[in-house]
Structure formats: C-alpha cells, structure tokens
C-alpha cells in the first residue's frame, strides 16, 4: 500500500519536473512560427535556426567558449587549493576554502554586482574575458567541492607507501595522487561548465551590452515575443546538461559525488 503511494508520489514529482520541459520541447517542433502545444505539424527548422541564424550561432559559440575556458580556470584555481589543504595542516588556509565557497552560496546578484563594481572601477567593463574570470571565480566552488572529496577518499597510506619507495612530493602528486583524483577533477569541470553555460546575471551585469551569451540572447529575445527558436535553445540546454551529467554518472560515482557515502553494497 504505502509502497504504491510512494511510487505515485515520485511519479507525480517526476511529471511536474518534466512538464515544462516536455511542453517546451513540443513547442520547439511546431511547424509554424507560433508557440502552440501540442505542436501543429512537425519541423526541426527551429533547431536549424540556432545554427543558421548568425545571432543565435554567435551566442551559442560565445557561451561554449566562455563555459569551456571559465570551467578550466575554475579547476586551475580549485585544484592547487584543494591539494594544499589536503597535503598540509594549515588551519588559516581554510579561509580560502570559505572564500571559494562563498560566491556560490550568496545570492548571485550580489556576486554579480561585486564584479560589475570591480570591472567598472578597473576600467575593463564590457570586455569578454572579464566574463571568463568572473564565471571562474563564481563557479570555483564546484570543482573545489568535488576535488576536496576526491582527496579525502585517498587512503593516506598510499602516499606513505610511495614515499617509502623513494618518491618525492612532486612524484607522489604525479604518479599516485593525480590519477586518483582525475575523475573528481573532470566532474568538477563538468559541473562548472554546465553552470557557466546557464549563467545569466553575472554575464549580463559584467558584459551584457557587449557580449551575448545564450541565456542573455534568450532573455533579450523574450522582450520581443516568444519564438519557437527559444524553445529549441531550451531543449538544447536541457540536452547538454543531461548529456554532461550522464557522462559524469557513467564514469564516476554520482551518488558519492553528491555526498552519499560510497555506493551501498549490501
């Protein structure tokens, strides 16, 4: 009885979670330039427009470039920090861990406004690369959390064993530690990548008038009415996120990455 109720409850939640995406996906297949659901006719034209229309294509490429480079930068910041905190006992260095976590927990408007004030003061307001740095600092939390988790799962006796065999710090890092944390590093990158792709307010405040990322493009387009192209872009976003997270799940232990103890055996 209660098992049936539980299944029903989960199913209802699943339907509500899927509903807006299903409707948007349906709308994106409309044959005409209208937002109707169920779709009238079937057409992939709106997906084609993402690539055919210079505006959408440009926004897509900009978003991908920013996401790829800011995620890389975020990992570059997070990895040495996580390694240092794991390798050495230095309580005051935890301060940087807090700094790395804070931007993500605070309302994003605040971080965005901080960046706006900063870049405006520094005189780089509107430069595309400022978005990359801003996103990297904003999203550094994600690789920091996953990589820290990765380090904590390494048995300390492994590095001690390597040390007794004559490996110095660098060699241990390269031959033992790095291979073990690579999955966590990759998933940290993936998380940051997807979130950067979807990020709106920081990109908008920092360089909204000069750089057009996909979310900015959608929001700007929303003012002039809804088109099926937006629906197609939305489908693209969901698909991209699902793809990336599926890959993370395929090659890593997703429940563990999200904070469950190692996968339940029994």
């Amino acid at each position, binding site marked *: 009885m209660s098992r049936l109720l539980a299944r029903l409850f989960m199913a209802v939640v699943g339907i509500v*979670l899927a509903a807006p995406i299903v409707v948007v996906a349906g709308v994106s297949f409309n044959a005409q330039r209208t937002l109707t659901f169920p779709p009238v006719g079937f057409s992939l034209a709106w997906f084609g427009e993402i690539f055919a229309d210079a505006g959408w294509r440009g926004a897509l490429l900009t978003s991908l470039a920013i996401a790829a480079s800011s995620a890389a930068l975020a990992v570059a910041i997070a990895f040495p920090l996580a390694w240092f905190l794991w390798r050495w006992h230095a309580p005051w260095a935890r301060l940087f861990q807090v700094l790395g976590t804070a931007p993500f927990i605070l309302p994003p408007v605040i971080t965005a406004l901080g960046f706006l004030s900063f870049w405006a003061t520094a005189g780089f307001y509107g430069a595309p690369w400022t978005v990359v740095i801003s996103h990297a600092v904003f999203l550094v939390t994600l690789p920091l959390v996953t990589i820290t988790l990765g380090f904590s799962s390494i048995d300390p006796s492994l590095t001690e064993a390597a040390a007794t065999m004559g490996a110095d710090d660098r060699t241990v890092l390269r031959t033992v530690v790095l291979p073990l944390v690579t999955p966590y590093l990759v998933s940290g990158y993936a998380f940051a990548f997807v979130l950067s792709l979807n990020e709106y307010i920081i990109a908008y405040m920092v360089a909204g008038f000069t750089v057009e990322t996909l979310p900015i493009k959608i929001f700007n387009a929303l003012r002039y009415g809804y088109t099926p192209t937006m629906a197609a872009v939305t489908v693209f976003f969901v698909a991209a996120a699902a793809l990336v997270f599926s890959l993370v799940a395929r090659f890593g232990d*997703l429940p563990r990455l999200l904070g469950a103890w190692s996968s339940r055996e029994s």
Partner: protein
Amino acid sequence: MTTARPQKLADYAPLVFPAVMLTVFFVVPFGIMVAVSFFRRVQGAFYEPDFVLANYARFLSVFFGEVLGFSLVLAALVAVVAVTIAFPFTYLLARLPRRRQVLWLVALLSIVSLSEVIVGFAWSTLFSRTAGITNVLVALGLMDEPMSLSPSFGALLTGLSYHAFPYTVLVLYPALARLDPTLMEAARTLGASPPCAFVTVVVPALRNTILATLIMVFVFALGAYLLPQLLGRPSNWTLSVLITDQAIYQSNLPFAAAMAVFLVLVSLALVGLSLLVGRKEAAQ
C-alpha cells in the same frame, strides 16, 4: 596527510595562484561594492567617491519596506513548499536501487543547472494561453476555454518552487543517503507503520538538517532575480530584481550596492546560522 605543517616557503607555492585569484577577483570586488554603497550617485556617470549614508537611508521608505517584506515572505514560502515536497521525495530517492537513483540524480542536476531564463521561459509557456496546461484542462472538459495563468503570484510561486526543488533535493541528499536504514526498520519492528516511522523517526532525527535546508533554500530563493520579472507582476518584484534594476537600468550603482550589502548581511547571517545548526547535528 593533514598532520604536517608546511615546512619551507616553497610548500606554500600551490596556494599562491588560488589565493591571488580569490583575493583579487572576489574579496576586492566585494570591498569595492561595499565602498560604492557609500558613494554618491552622479547623473550621467556611474558615481563618485564620497561617504554618504543616503543610499542606506532610502531603505527607510515604505516602498523599500514593502519590497523587502515581500521578498522575505516569498522566499520563506518557497523554502517551506520546496522542503515539504523535497524531504519525503529525497528520502524515497535515497532508498531506490542505485541505477534508478543515478537516473533521478542526472535529471535533477540537469534541471538545477538550468538558467532562470530557461525556467522562466518554460513556465511562462506552460502558463500561456496557447501552449499551456489550461489547454489540457479544456481537453478534459474541466474548463471552457484556455486562459493565461501568468503573470500572477501563483505563477511566480510555482516557478520559484520548481527552480528551488532540485536544489533542495541535492542539499538534503547527503543527510538522507547516510541515514542509517536500520533506524526505520527498528521503528517498524517496534510497531510503527512506514508512514508513522517516517514521521516519528526520520523527521525528528533530521530536524536540524531540515532547518538548515530551509535556510539554504530561503537564501537561494532570495537570490532569484529573473523569475519575478518573467512570471510575476511588478508588485511581485523582489529585492534581487530591484538591485538588478537599479544597477543596470537606473544606473544607480551606489543604491544597488547598498541593497546588495544589506542582502549579504541577511544571507550571511542565515548561512552562518544554518552551518551552526548543521554542526550541532554532526556533533551528536
């Protein structure tokens, strides 16, 4: 590994790059924002350095009080709705077989990472006259003709709760995944039906987690800046919308900064509280 203290200066080398990046691009911008909140606004330009409290004084207006009050009530409402649904959901999720659990997690991650722009667009489509749920109701004969459900407070609350739900699940997930399953079994052998055991054991055993999650979701909802514009009426605008509006469209950076500082203080106090509550539970 964490027992040794750094020996030589070179041991600190890995810390340099992260420390510089986080200081220059997070601490300094934050400081500038705080400074700007005391600056004087100049029409036609950004602002000029000064030390005025005028930006904070504007908080004392009725309008601001209403917006703040509305933002807090809305965020609290969203937090309660999201946690009320997410808690039993996450409990069931954490007990699923691994494969199905991973599928759910991928779906939740995909949705939680969606931009507010996308969520707002999706829900306004769902609430629209032409492609919305009212069409389904009409098809079922429950309604006469399709109608638009947005903008409205209900639409905003739905959209925000939707946006916050996967986040809430992911915040609750570690605690519920680590919950000893034999606690439930023990309750059952002691005569509690599964729903009774859930209410008398799982919920009270995790009451601090629930409280901490409520606060986290509250802060999360407080940060929403697009959904109120896309799904709500102007009277449903929140502090975050106002900050964006002042910063971008009114070019009043000092006032926006003052509001942001205020929001930070509220958020920090709440996050600190939730960490404190969480630590208390971990110590038990």
